[in-house]
């Protein structure tokens, strides 16, 4: 059986509906909400602020620290035990690396910018949703950035290359491949790339082209969210 039509009726290169908001957590220095399909991320940014313990400080520039966490009731299966695990630690780390190339913290030696990503509801593609929200939240926090970062997962379900896999597609009985990609949309540089499954070099190339196209749409949604928050404040 080949994958002729997507479970949710989307075209193969079509992303799920998105919703983005900036400034949803008043206590934070910057914050954002990003929803793609049924995956939802809340992000708060705090800082630049004092960093303790002192040995973590970098006297040359501020550091970025990301934390990715699924709420206990967020998953489609059993309750997620609070307190993190190996998976969430790794995702925190790759998220940090995905955002780092755009963030300029030279003005803030010894300080830290904390990015807290929380997922109340998940349906695949959550690290990408977290990165999309984090980029909005960092800009909202007034952090100096060379660009935003947008992320989406691409891959293969059965024999079809697809964009933005949902959970059912990831769990497809004929097998699926998932390749999360983050890019700086203006220059097309890649800052996150992971893959698990089975893709040929040609397929990877094709997938990256599809991702580039999808990320441009995501970028527009991110920009709109930021401008929307501040629109009332101008002119």
């Amino acid at each position, binding site marked *: 059986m080949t994958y002729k039509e997507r479970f949710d009726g989307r075209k193969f290169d079509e992303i799920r509906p998105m919703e983005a908001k900036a400034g949803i957590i008043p206590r934070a*220095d*910057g914050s954002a909400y990003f929803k793609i399909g049924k995956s939802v991320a809340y992000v708060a940014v705090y*800082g*630049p*602020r*004092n960093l303790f313990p002192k040995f973590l400080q970098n*006297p040359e520039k*501020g550091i970025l620290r990301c934390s990715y966490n699924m709420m206990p009731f967020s998953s489609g299966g059993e309750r997620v035990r609070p307190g993190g695990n190996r998976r969430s630690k790794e995702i925190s780390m790759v998220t940090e690396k995905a955002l780092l190339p*755009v963030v*300029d913290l030279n*003005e*803030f*030696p*010894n*300080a830290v910018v904390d990015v807290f990503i929380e997922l109340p509801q998940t349906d695949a593609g959550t690290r990408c949703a977290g990165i999309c929200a984090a980029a909005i939240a960092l*800009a*909202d*926090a*007034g*952090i*100096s*950035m*060379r*660009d*935003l970062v947008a992320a989406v997962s691409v891959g293969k379900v059965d024999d079809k290359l697809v964009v933005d896999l949902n959970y059912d597609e990831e769990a497809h009985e004929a097998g699926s491949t998932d390749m999360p990609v983050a890019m*700086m*949309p*203006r*220059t097309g540089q890649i800052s996150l790339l992971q893959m698990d499954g089975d893709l040929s070099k040609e397929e990877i190339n094709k997938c990256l082209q599809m991702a580039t196209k999808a990320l441009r749409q995501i970028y527009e949604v*991110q*920009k709109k969210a*930021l*401008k929307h928050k*501040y*629109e*009332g*404040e*101008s*002119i």
Partner: protein
Amino acid sequence: MGELLVKEKDIVVPGDELATGMDFLPDSGAYRDNDKIIATRLGVVGVNGRAIRIIPLSGKYIPKKGDTIIGKVIDVTFTGWRIDTNSAYSAMLSSKDATTRFINRGADLTQYFNFGDYIVAKIITVTSQKLIDLTMKAPGLRKLGEGRVITVNPNKVPRIIGKNGSMVSLIKEATGCTIIVGQNGIVWLSGAPEKELLAVNTIRMIEKNAHVSGLTEKVSEFLSKVN
């Protein structure tokens, strides 16, 4: 041949292209990438001749020499006080810079300023490693007594103060409150409780409408409506 891709007062986000060609120059909040000028901050476009800058709409306070700030005592040491500045860095107020009176070495410094006290002070030094020194030896610099302390967006402080302090004077007159606005986004105010509340609400209104034209009239109206 250069072209401006945005207008004065447009809201831009990091990564937005502001201009192409070599005719324009990036000022604060912007950088050049080959023949393009790109925004690095969320803010409002300001064009001054060939220079394009972004006036930020958000972001933490960055300590600058000469700024008058409101800080909070977070530690008392042998030689002075450590002060929270509402930024990424705390500052030192040395006992010799705190008062014109002579303080004996080893004296109990809490009799001057104690934990949790708020002070108005001036920044005299900021090093590249962001070590900050404060002084209180200038008119108006003092310890603050009973009053309300609120935090505002430091990028909106110029609007709250107004030209030559006109905006804050307007609020002071209408409410009878004593109001001190620190460059670091900390505001201290003291007066009759309901007047304090009116002053706080007015400041919040200015914060939300900082870039609206005719703000002074709006503020007068806001103040008179409630009074």
